């Protein structure tokens, strides 16, 4: 069966933090702000570790792209049960403009280098909400993809994936090697236990540069401006239902 699983983990601003836009409107404030692992990436790590516990995979490798700080995120994955980590060093302007296209190129290159036969990612990151990396990675590798997975089952050399789609649940069967992206209901991630946190200290994290993987980090996108969402306007109170209908017609809503 699949020997090696690659799990992508992204360091994002913690979901509970109130986001503030930088005064120069070039982005959001990240200095001194609490960061943690993207919640969907946590679910991806949990799924990979469960596959290992069921002895369906041999090794779980956690990957993260970014500056020195992403090592904390990789170590959290190790504390959850991943076997080793790969830190792809990206910093400064390159990190600011890092997006799904570059990350998927990196993951594709790593999958080939590490001879991985399964890649599990979160369906999207909570900072950019792109929902593209999994799909792009699969396309670059020419692998099948099972996205928005709420259930993954191994059936021989195939994967049965139940996907959460607008109309309900869709069940597909895909060949390995494959890319799977995790949706909310795939599992409930475990708390890192103290013994595992201790063990994580001894697990290896290798450093790799995008250049070593032959990946060009130039972005095809340019962020022009970042603004706060418009302030919520006060509502208007009306006396009767007729008034309400009148106002809605006025506003062109009906």
């Amino acid at each position: 069966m699949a020997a090696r699983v690659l799990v992508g983990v992204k360091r994002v601003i913690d979901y509970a933090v109130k986001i503030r836009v930088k005064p120069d409107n070039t982005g959001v404030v990240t200095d001194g702000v609490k960061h943690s692992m993207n919640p969907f990436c946590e679910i991806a790590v949990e799924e990979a570790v469960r596959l290992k516990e069921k002895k369906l995979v041999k090794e779980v490798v956690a990957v993260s792209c970014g500056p020195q700080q992403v090592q904390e995120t990789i170590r959290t994955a190790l504390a959850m049960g991943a076997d080793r980590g790969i830190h792809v060093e990206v910093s400064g302007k390159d990190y600011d403009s890092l997006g799904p296209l570059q990350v998927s190129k990196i993951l594709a290159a790593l999958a080939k280098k590490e001879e991985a036969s399964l890649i599990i990612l979160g369906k999207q990151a909570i900072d950019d909400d792109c929902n593209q990396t999994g799909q792009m990675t699969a396309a670059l590798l020419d692998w099948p993809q099972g996205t928005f997975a709420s259930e993954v089952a191994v059936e021989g050399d195939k994967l049965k994936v139940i996907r959460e789609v607008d109309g309900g649940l869709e069940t597909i069967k895909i060949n390995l090697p494959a890319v799977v992206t995790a949706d909310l209901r795939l599992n409930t991630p475990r708390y890192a236990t103290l013994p595992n946190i201790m063990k994580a200290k001894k697990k290896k994290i290798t450093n790799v540069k995008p250049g070593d993987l032959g990946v060009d980090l130039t972005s095809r996108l340019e962020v022009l401006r970042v603004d706060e969402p418009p302030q919520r306007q006060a509502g208007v109170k009306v006396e009767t239902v007729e008034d309400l209908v009148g106002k809605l017609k006025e506003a062109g809503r009906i």
Partner: protein
Amino acid sequence: TVIDLLTTFIHSFSPCLLALAMAVNYGTRSLTQLAELPELHQMLRQTCRDYAEKELAPVAGQLDKNHTFPAKQVRELGAMGVMAVEVPESLGGAGMDYLAYSLAVEELSRGCASTGVIVSVNNSLYLGPVLAFGTEEQKQQWISPFTTGEKVGCFALSEPGNGSDAGAASTLARQEGDEWVLNGTKAWITNCWDASAAVVFATTDKSLKHKGISAFLVPMPHPGLSLGKKEDKLGIRASSTANLILEDCRIPLGNLLGQRGMGFKIGMQTLDSGRIGIASQALGIAQAALDCAADYAHKRTAFGAPIARLQAIQFKLADMAVALESARLLTWKAAMLRDAKKPYSKAAAMAKLAASEAATFVSHQAIQVLGGMGYVTDMPAERHYRDARITEIYEGTSEIQRLVIANQVLKEYQQ
């Protein structure tokens, strides 16, 4: 004059410089740990905080109202390794240090103070003495089953007739053949109704006064051992507190912990460590109260603006934050000294005193910031106030802590 000012400045600074020198003496590692915790400890703190936020805080109110022992949570914490932080991995523990333990208890207590004390008593007061004074056999029998959260232990030192006056233990233990026979009553035993074992202190030689006290390991339940009614407490109501009644309670000779007559020493040493646990619990309660008050101050408007804009509220929050942070640093220092195997009695007593008084101060002020809302059960402030109060009493009253500290200070200036 400038000279006077300079002299005052240097005089007020020299204790700090001395402390700095001492801290650097213990290694730069200790100093930077006060400024920023090592990665391992940060991860541990985060995992305990996550657990407390998701699994403890939402049910703490109910647990308190119904006086329910959080059995499910204790098992989950056992699986995480938190019920036996310092116990080596070979015996089923997490094999971490006391600073890690302090962080764990603080974060968990922030979610639920009762759960915090259950964790602390199991770690410091039950596993602590067995780890420090037990034989290899005793460790296997009395430690390993108590690391998973399936079983918890308790510590029976106080009696109806003596709390602070621990040397006056009137519970008696006599040897009869190949058994010890224990008789007496122990009071205020935390975890009592939920425990599977107790460390019990009893007098084996009354003539030797406090040097005639010994420590025993007693399984629970056991013939000759019965429990008094569960106390109806002001706070930490999810943890059970009751009397332990020993009537011709027979235990094997091998259940003696340490040497005969070593009981007082075992008790005092255990409480020294336990102090750091309770200090950590008090920090958690204080933090939860501060969280509540600061959040409320942003939201509540009065006189046309959030009350956070009022200096009266700001001064309160500042005083609360300083009390909490200084107590926290004292607690971390005590834990670090213990981890470095340096004398830590004074530091532990200072930590417990500062943290417990911070907890009562902060929770008192938190209710004040919340006004009427602080007085009702809709907000957790009243529960923090009730939970905080006991921290100034158990595991050494604030008065005893002051005696311990004064004793140490006077020793330093011995004529």
